[in-house]
């Protein structure tokens, strides 16, 4: 569980990124942390991971203060960063060198994910493509079984089949005790797997809702003409006419169009 209370943070000699930010993430969820470039997503993730120290306020992750970087805290959180570098070794040596620090590491799960991602444990890490290295890091992260998994732009660099494999593997690998935070601006890549959406804009949480609640409250559809529909909250032109967000009327639940929802939130239509 992550609890953030009245968080204020700014980089040296810069304006505050967060001012009195409060937020709570419960275990057993896959949270989509969305926001435009520069909204503060990566900074928030670094604060949660203990890589940055808040100027004011408190952060608690599984009962630990992240910046204390206690071993017990670090062995229960795994961060897949957007940019990463590896030592000059092959996959199996990397696994041997690092799995020992994670008490719940699951080798069988790792092997299964390797097979799914078509990764060869004997491959040299630095000879793999960016996408393959990212897949390896995601596989390792999932195999650690850490209570908190933080994935920063996990689908960047993945090809189309890998993106769908990623979604499938993530959903099947994560247990009820885990909390997964996925930060991305490629919202379409994760729209089917997240169960909570948090939108960050200019250092503030402007939207935080479960997908269940969104489905009950909002309706997403594509219509040919605006004349046919009342109560449109947000609309976007598309080749078939308009993609619209309307208030749900309780008849049926439409699947969430995450990109449309995100644009509606950012434009403050919702």
């Amino acid at each position, binding site marked *: 569980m992550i609890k953030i209370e009245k968080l204020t943070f700014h980089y040296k000699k810069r304006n505050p990124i967060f001012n009195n930010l409060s937020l709570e993430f419960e275990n057993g969820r896959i949270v989509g942390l969305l926001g435009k470039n520069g909204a503060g997503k990566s900074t928030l993730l670094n604060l949660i991971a203990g*890589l940055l120290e808040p100027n004011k306020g408190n952060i608690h992750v599984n009962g630990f203060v992240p910046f204390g970087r206690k071993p017990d805290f670090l062995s229960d959180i*795994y961060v897949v960063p957007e940019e*990463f570098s590896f030592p000059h070794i092959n996959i199996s040596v990397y696994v041997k060198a690092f799995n*020992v*620090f994670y008490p719940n590491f699951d080798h069988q799960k790792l092997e299964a994910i390797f097979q799914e991602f078509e990764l060869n444990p004997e491959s040299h890490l630095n000879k793999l493509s960016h996408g393959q290295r990212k897949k390896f890091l995601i596989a390792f992260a999932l195999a650690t079984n850490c209570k908190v998994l933080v994935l920063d732009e996990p689908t960047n660099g993945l090809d189309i089949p890998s993106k769908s494999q990623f979604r499938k593997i993530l959903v099947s690998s994560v247990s009820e005790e885990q909390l997964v935070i996925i930060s991305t601006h490629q919202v379409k890549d994760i729209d089917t797997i997240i169960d909570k959406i948090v939108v960050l804009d200019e250092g503030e949480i402007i939207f935080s809702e479960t997908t269940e609640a969104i489905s009950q409250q909002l309706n997403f559809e594509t219509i040919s003409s605006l004349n046919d529909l009342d109560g449109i909250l947000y609309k976007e032109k598309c080749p078939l006419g308009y993609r619209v967000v309307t208030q749900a009327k309780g008849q049926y639940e439409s699947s969430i169009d995450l990109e449309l929802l995100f644009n509606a939130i950012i434009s403050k239509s919702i």
Partner: protein
Amino acid sequence: MNKNSFFSFSRFGLLLRNDFMLNYKKYLLTIAGAFLAGILIIYINMPSGKYGYDFHPGRYGDIFVIFLIGLGAFIGLGFPAFSNKASTHSYLLMPCSTFEKFASQFLIRIIIGTALIFLIFYVDAIIVRSAALHSLSQYNNPAKIPVFHFSDLFFSYNNININIVKYTSICLFITLGLYIFSVRLYYKRLAMIKTALTLAATAALIALLCIVMSHLFYPETKGMDIIVNDYQVFQNISNMDVYMYTLFCVPIIFFLPLGYFKLKEKHL
């Protein structure tokens, strides 16, 4: 305090294992490079063939200073993960305590590094002496090369106050090592170069302070001269001894905690 969150032998062992698994090739190459460079450096400085005269045992100590510079570079390259943001990220998130991370680098870079540099120098000195003696005998060169003893590194020149050379040299080397080890944590890119520059700047400031003091208290001082009035503080201990001990020994107390707390507060 939960001791396990501060230091655990098993975790420390795993951290060392991790370091050796990732860097063993680098370490082996460094040892091989130091060994070969050492042979070359000692051979150049020893008489061989028909050239050269008796080799004074004190020369071993002079040559060893070059080895110590190499050791300084090895120490300065500690915490290699901090050379870029991505590796800093994974190093800081490695599930070990800050103390374990600091202690592992201290053990590898300073303790093992120092032991190895002495060992390499010893082996190099024996090999090169044998080769040089063989070469001298072929040309009937009567030059003598004494066997290397570790004591040659500190006590060879009888005309220098042995106490000062012995204690201040040891303290100086330890202080410099710890300075490089700890201060490099304050920098991200080109940490070793920046650390060396700050060291040079610190030395220059101390020299400047001495010059200013000399001008203040001894008006006859000329230009950049430093005048020190030497006198006995205690029996066999002069004010210069005290000054040297203070300058070279006292910082030892500060550098390790300085480095540890910097690592503890290290941000991405």
